[in-house]
């Protein structure tokens, strides 16, 4: 198991190098930033001077080395618009996004497990059909529309919850609710079908033959096996949070990374876009690493193949 984690960590490092290179190259492809700084009176000497200041006079490989060196120091450059270090801006936005993202992820995954298992064990009952209906709604309705509708119903019409912004726990209800509503269905359907497959297997029959109570049969013997397939998807769903957050953070005026990246994109604030892209890539990598470790933890066969 230890060796497996070390190997996966090394793979993550390789992927990180690749990502940093890609982001570096993509940013350079967008053109020469000094072109945007020119005014009719700018002299060539001034341009050379600016290039020197920004380190753009050096060769591209050299620039990459500096970029990586700065990364290690936690320096992502400075926002062109706000004239503030990108790390500070992300530092302010990230905790807000993490609170929203992790709460929604936890809520939706727990609900997906619970509803998926219950639907599978009570197949074709009212509950199962209800779950299927909910899944169709969640997968078909666009996230932003559900968010606006939720604000209209719960905040504007009934005055139950705040419309937007951060503050007390009440501010979490609508954003977490809509984000979860949007993350839940895929996972729930996957848990349900995976659980149905497993419940049909011989080892579940054997567990019942042993005289185990149904509770143990389902939550110990079946669930652990049924989790293997959905777990891979959980990593992908986490990436959905990020894209989902860009939309929902804007609808709910939530000061997180999603809103930051949208604002930066609209204003062509390249250093911020770069910084956020790198951050998102690192987060997805870390989650995938975690998923792989969990995968090996759940399924001994993977654990033994890898070492």
């Amino acid at each position: 198991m230890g060796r497996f984690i070390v190997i996966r960590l090394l793979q993550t490092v390789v992927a990180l190098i690749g990502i940093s290179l890609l982001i570096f190259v993509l940013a350079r492809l967008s053109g020469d930033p000094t072109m945007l700084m020119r005014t009719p009176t700018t002299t060539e000497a001034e341009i050379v001077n600016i290039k020197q200041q920004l380190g753009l006079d050096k060769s591209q490989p050299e620039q990459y080395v500096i970029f990586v060196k700065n990364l290690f120091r936690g320096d992502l450059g400075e926002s062109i618009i706000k004239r503030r270090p990108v790390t500070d801006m992300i530092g302010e936005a990230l905790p807000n996004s993490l609170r929203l993202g992790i709460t929604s992820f936890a809520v939706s995954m727990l609900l997906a497990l619970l509803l998926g298992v219950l639907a599978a064990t009570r197949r074709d009952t009212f509950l199962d059909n209800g779950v299927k209906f909910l899944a169709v709604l969640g997968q078909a309705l666009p996230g932003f529309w559900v968010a606006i509708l939720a604000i209209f119903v719960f905040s504007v019409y009934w005055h139950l919850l705040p419309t937007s912004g951060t503050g007390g726990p009440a501010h979490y209800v609508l954003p977490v609710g809509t984000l979860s509503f949007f993350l839940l269905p895929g996972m729930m359907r996957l848990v349900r079908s995976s659980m149905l497959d497993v419940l049909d297997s011989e080892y579940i029959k054997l567990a019942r033959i042993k005289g185990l109570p149904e509770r143990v049969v389902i939550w110990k013997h079946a669930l652990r096996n049924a989790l293997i397939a959905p777990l891979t998807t959980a990593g992908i769903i986490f990436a959905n949070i990020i894209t989902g957050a860009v939309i929902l953070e804007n609808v709910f005026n939530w000061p997180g990374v999603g809103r930051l990246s949208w604002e930066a994109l609209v204003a062509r604030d390249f250093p911020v876009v770069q910084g956020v892209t790198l951050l998102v890539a690192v987060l997805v990598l870390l989650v995938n690493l975690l998923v792989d470790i969990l995968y090996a933890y759940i399924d001994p066969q993977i654990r033994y193949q890898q070492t």
Partner: protein
Amino acid sequence: MSKIILQVEGLHTVFFTRQGVVKAVDGVSFYVREGETFGIVGESGCGKTVTGLSILRLLPEPAGRIVGGKIILDGKNLLELSKKEMREYRGSMISMILQDPMTSLNPVYTIGDQIAESVRLHQNLKDDAVEKEVISALRLLKIPAPEMRLHDYPFQMSGGMRQRVVGAIAMSCHPRLLIADEPTTALDATIQAQYIALFKDVQRQTNVAIVFITHDFGVVAQMCHRVGVMYAGKIVETATTRELFKAPRHPYTSALINSVPRLDRKDNRLYSIEGQPPSMTDLPRGCRFFPRCSVARDVCREQEPGEVDIGGEHSVSCWRVS
């Protein structure tokens, strides 16, 4: 004669399907003594597995239901037990071995865990005593180096070894009755012979009664003391194994025995029974075997034959005998 441990009387099990009510087990009666192996033989779909599952009350729900009869285990009618009481009987008083060892163990738990789970559930023991019981169960099934294999996962074992582990799970709580549903069908021929020898040994040591479900007369000859031949939901003939092979009285039994390939005969053609077993939703009015029977008479078409005891623990349901 040893004591009768299991007595099944007039068992009726039905399945409610879209095509109608299927009488999968239609009035089956038999008994098994302590230390005895009773074989249930028959073609696929004749109801032998459903009989086994009925004894454990583990029919697929909600389609399957036991609608009549008695299943008396050591003086207690299992059909009168509450769900909870029945669960306590499972694994401790009655156990079952399933057909395919490759799929009947949970892939994510060690075999030690899977055996210990039964032991812990049914016996009030401390952890080190549990481990001792687990090791003794593995030893009973002659699994080499049990202390080490304890920590293995099913995928690290061969099919034959896995089936022994399934046997160890079944025997771990010293059951009085073991139902073995084609436990050797998925094994190689050589491993099959080993497994049968192993189970005869286990039975000698524990005096467990075994209901052995199979379609293989070769296995019956090696393993069983008495046999019931099942056809379309009914037991058509019951006899000691020796008697059944020597003097089968039901035409279906004779036909089945004749269809076992033999090396000591010159003719190269394999014998097979004409026709198909009847559809379980549309059974013939008279004897169920009548459409395929080579010696059928008019009465066979009209009326179902009753069971006739012809002495020496031999009974037959056939008009030719009564």
